[in-house]
């Protein structure tokens, strides 16, 4: 069973506009959520995280929103840049159960110039 789902395999956005990537989870024990970016032939790079005590965390152009009641989180990138083109993974962990990350399948973001 997929505990973390990214339902959009790909997203195409114009440079300068907002990119919104979505993620849903099913396990109510998850209390820490992370977004990673991955380029081909490289490991995932940490972008931003949020704990379950917050509903928003912002870092420069990146903002993550958490809706616990809906078990949904999203990553907003504003403004989008061509260098943001990559695969984005949503991940979740239950800190009481050892911090192992459960990943979604990823969303390919293409930012067109």
């Amino acid at each position, binding site marked *: 069973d997929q505990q973390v789902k990214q339902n959009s395999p790909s997203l195409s956005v114009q440079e300068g506009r907002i990119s919104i990537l979505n993620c849903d989870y099913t396990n109510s024990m998850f209390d820490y959520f992370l977004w990673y970016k991955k380029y081909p*032939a*490289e*490991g995932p790079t940490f972008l931003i995280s949020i704990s379950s005590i917050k509903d928003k965390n912002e870092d420069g152009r990146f903002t993550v929103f958490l809706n616990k009641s809906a078990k949904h989180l999203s990553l907003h990138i504003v403004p989008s840049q061509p260098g943001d083109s990559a695969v984005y993974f949503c991940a979740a962990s239950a*800190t009481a159960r050892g*911090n*192992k990350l459960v990943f979604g399948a990823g969303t390919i973001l293409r930012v067109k110039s």
Partner: protein
Amino acid sequence: GAGVSQSPRYKVAKRGQDVALRCDPISGHVSLFWYQQALGQGPEFLTYFQNEAQLDKSGLPSDRFFAERPEGSVSTLKIQRTQKEDSAVYLCASSRGGTNSYNEQFFGPGTRLTVL
């Protein structure tokens, strides 16, 4: 560099061979994780170490997979009698804290294993 390093970056093995994959975590990081990533999917958890103790190995797919971190730093993932279905990218990650702490994990570049 100060990041997580893995070697080799690429490994081709004949079915039935044993392989050993190495991970050098960020210095001082307490936690070390191994993940397996199949093509087109997200990474999947294999095993977790806190210092030298292997606290969770629930993700190891079979008893052919074995991991160790004897001195609490470098870790090795060993796969015995490799099978074609073992072909994947093996990712290592480390994080500063231990269990019950919010710490992001930093990933290495991965080892791409191809079993012929």
